[in-house]
Each structure stands twice: as structure tokens, then as C-alpha cells.
């Protein structure tokens, strides 16, 4: 299978602090790739580099085209949906308005009704709450809304930043089940960044481990699960 996204020797910094020291990885077309790592390893920055929110050095290719240095607004139009850390909810807008903004960059906005139906099928709770202010939703519902907002774009690549953060295990299970369904049914490639390695390794078909801005380990989840260091540091047994 061909890679939809490849990053080579990507470096990024905030002010004088270098956060990524040459990260390389690839996301297979139609696959789910995960990047694991502890707090501060550079996971979020990696996603921000892909979606254009931070300036980078090195090369990033999406669908065969160089995309480093492009603005997020442009990358969205190429089909990259970034579901950011902390969910990025528009708390003062209704659920439906949040979703409408998700479809903002689509050229075929006229077919919005269909997009709403599809999204509501994955997340029935959002249909019930569609007139409610998004800020009144629970954490799990807001995470669902964030993914749904990304889905409204009908993206080719979905970037998920710690969707499990701060949520009860049952809800995390539910959200990951839906992510898998979206990946399977829509053919959306997924790049998932997680601290919760157990569940991320279950979902992904390829995994990278990031430590202080470097990839220290890469391979299929089955192999990574056998690795002693991964087991001790991320799986806890």
C-alpha cells in the first residue's frame, strides 16, 4: 500500500526550544497509524507540524505533494482534518453550528445535509443535542463532536490528538470503536497520537514511539507489544 502521508527528518521549535529533533514516519493510505509517547515527547507538535500550525524544517508529503510550510487553511482544503488537543470546541455555538463550521472548507457545501446524516449516524447523541450549546456537553460528547467536526470535511486524513484524554474507559472504548468504523467505512486514513498505549495499539496497524522529539521505535503493534521497554513504559506490565 502507498503512503498518504510521509514525514522525513521533521524538526520544529517554539522560540529557542527545539521540540522535534528530526522525526520521520509514514501513514498508509486507508490505514491507522499511531504515535505513542509520554507527556512532552512531541506528539502534539508532530500533528501541528502536519496540519501547518507550527513552522517546520524537513519534508512532509501528503498525497505525493510537498506540504510543509503551507497554511492550515490551505491544508484543510486538501483534505487534512485535525482534531486538536483539548477538542477545540466552539463552546458558545450550538452543536449543529460546530458541525457547520467543520464543513466550511468543503466546496460542495450544498451537500451538507447528507454530511450531517452521516455524522449523526456515527454519533446519534449529537443529533439529540444538536440545538444545545456545545459548551454544555460532557467531555465525551465534546470529543465526539470534535471528531464529527473533522468528519464533516469528508477528509482524506484524520489527525486525532489524544481522544482518550480525561475520559472514562467505557467512553474511550466507544470512541475508538467509532474511529475504527469511520476508518473502515469512509476509507479515511488516521494518524492517532496517544498516551493510552494499550488501546492505541489495539486499533492501529502501525505504531511509532516518540521520546523527547525523536522516534525511538517503530513497527507493527504486535511486535511493539513484545518489546520490553514499551511494555514497562507504556503498557504497565
Amino acid at each position, binding site marked *: 500500500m502507498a503512503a498518504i502521508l510521509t514525514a522525513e527528518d521533521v524538526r520544529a521549535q517554539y522560540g529557542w526550544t527545539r521540540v522535534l529533533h528530526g522525526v520521520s514516519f509514514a501513514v498508509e493510505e486507508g490505514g491507522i497509524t499511531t504515535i505513542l509517547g509520554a507527556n512532552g515527547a512531541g506528539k502534539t507538535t508532530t500533528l501541528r507540524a502536519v*496540519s501547518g*500550525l507550527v513552522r517546520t524544517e524537513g519534508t512532509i508529503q501528503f498525497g505525493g505533494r510537498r506540504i510543509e510550510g503551507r*497554511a*492550515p*487553511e490551505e491544508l*484543510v*482544503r486538501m483534505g487534512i*482534518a*485535525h482534531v*486538536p488537543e483539548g477538542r*477545540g*470546541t*466552539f*463552546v*458558545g*455555538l450550538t452543536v449543529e*453550528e460546530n458541525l*457547520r*463550521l*467543520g464543513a*466550511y*472548507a468543503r466546496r460542495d*457545501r450544498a451537500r451538507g445535509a447528507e454530511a450531517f446524516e452521516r455524522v449523526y449516524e456515527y454519533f446519534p447523541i449529537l443529533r439529540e443535542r444538536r440545538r444545545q450549546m456545545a459548551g454544555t456537553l460532557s467531555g465525551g460528547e465534546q470529543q465526539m463532536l470534535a471528531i464529527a*467536526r473533522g468528519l464533516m*470535511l469528508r477528509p482524506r486524513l484524520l489527525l486525532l490528538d489524544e481522544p482518550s484524554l480525561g475520559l472514562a474507559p467505557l467512553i474511550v472504548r466507544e470512541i475508538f470503536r467509532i474511529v475504527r468504523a469511520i476508518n473502515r467505512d469512509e476509507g479515511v486514513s488516521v494518524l492517532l497520537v496517544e498516551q493510552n498505549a494499550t488501546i492505541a495499539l489495539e486499533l492501529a496497524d502501525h505504531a511509532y514511539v516518540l521520546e523527547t522529539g525523536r522516534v525511538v521505535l517503530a513497527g507493527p503493534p504486535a511486535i511493539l507489544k513484545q518489546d520490553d521497554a514499551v511494555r514497562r513504559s507504556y503498557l504497565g506490565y
Partner: protein
Amino acid sequence: MDILLQQVVSGLATGGIYASLALALVMIYQATDVVNFAQGEMAMFSTYLAWSLINAGVPYWGAFAATLVLAFIGGLLIERLVIRPVENAPVLAIVIVCIGLLTILNSVAGWIYSYIQKPFPSPFPDKPINIGQIVFGAHDLGAIGITLLVLVFLYVFFRYTTLGLAMRGAAQNPVSSRLCGVRVGWMLALGWGLAALVGAVAGMMVAPIVFLDPNMMGGILIYAFASATLGGFTSPGGAVVGGLLVGVIENLVGTYVRFIGTELKLTVALAIILIVLVVKPSGLFGRAVVRRV
């Protein structure tokens, strides 16, 4: 009793003017978090443009429409050229830039048009309308009507159009908006353009009453601040209600409290700002803004 009613009615009339300028203030504040001290002078300058057009023989409503377009473009340019470079500067820097803008617009208007007062036409008939014992000025009623129309237009625009939604999104959560593909910088510029347009309406409605001169908006801006504070800086509808209330309060206090009279009327506006900030800082219809620090 008739005097009371009459004073309430004329209070509503001036209140309508405060309301439309307050509306412009609240719009920029909502869209960009900037309190625009130059709003009044922007409105004054737009009104001079309208005056030039009318003097050149353009019919009133034609000049009115052209002025709205020019004001919109002017607001847009001001944001792009003057505000954008200090976008990420501390709030005090932006306030100073706005005050600089105020002074510049005032001086340029004086330089081009001189400081001599000019009459400005009203599109409404001169003949007052009598209902019972109470006299309504046709222009006053028209001005209130137009302010309400502007409010409805803004409500529909922000509530039902995709562009309006994108502007609200950009104000609330710029990063998320960018990730949705919204060009946030342009949304801020559009916000300034729209506010300048609303301000231009206020200017053209107030000029027939106070006459056109470069300082005509000075006092009115203070009333507009009082209105926006009273209604709540986060609520456009509140700004309009606040404006009407300030107009009525000002008029009643001026009539019935002898030592205030007409000379101390402006003090009433300042007193309102002070009292609201002490008793209910978020205003009548505003919501408290909570920030995590």
C-alpha cells in the same frame, strides 16, 4: 403626565442614535476583543463622505448606500493597515492606536471640511407626527426604525449565513477556526468593515440633529459607551436596549432634576458607566467572560 411621556419619547429618539453607535462598538468588541475608541470619528468621517456625495448632486438614498459601501471598505482597510500590525500587542497598545486613529480622523476631517458646522439633510419629512398630546419627530421615528432594521440585518447575518457563523467562530476560537479552514485574519477585517458600516448609519442619522462638524461624535461616543456598558458589551441586542434606556434616563434626569439641567447631562452618561461597573459589570444582558489564566 404628558410632559413625562413627551420626554420619554424624545429620550427614545436620541437613544436610537446612541444605540446604533453602541451596536458598532459591541460588534468590534465581540469580533476582535478590541474596544474601538475611534468608532465615533469613523462614523463622523463617513458622514462627511455622504455630505460630499449629496453636495455633488447624488440623491439621498444613493449617497446613503454609497457611504455604507465606502465605510465598509474603509473599516476593512483600517483593520488591515493599522490594527493588524499590532494584533498581538498588549491591549493598551491597541487602545493607544485607536486613540491615535481618533485624533487623525478628526484632524483630517477638519483639514478637508473645516470646523464650521454644516447642515445635513434628513431623508424623513419635517412635519412632526402627533399621536394624542404627544409629538413625535418624523426623523426621530425614522432613526429608531433604521437602527432596529440594522439590528435585524445583523442578527440574520450572524445567525443564518455561513460567513456570519465563520465570523463568530473566528472570534471565539481562532485556532479551531483555522483548522476548519476559516481565514481568521479576514474575518476580523470583515468585522471592522461591518462595524464601520453600522457606525456610518449612526453618523448619518445623528448629523441632521446635531449638525455636521468634526467633533459631533465626541459626546455621543461617551453615551454609546454608557449604552454598551449598560446593555452588556457581549450582547448586540443589549447595546440597543442600553442605548434607548440611556437616552430616556438622560432626558428624564435633565428635565426633572433641576440642578442637572442640560449642562450636566453628559455627567449622567458617565455616572451610568460607573454605577453599572460597580453593581453589575457584565451589564443587563451580557454574560461574564471567564478566562483561564
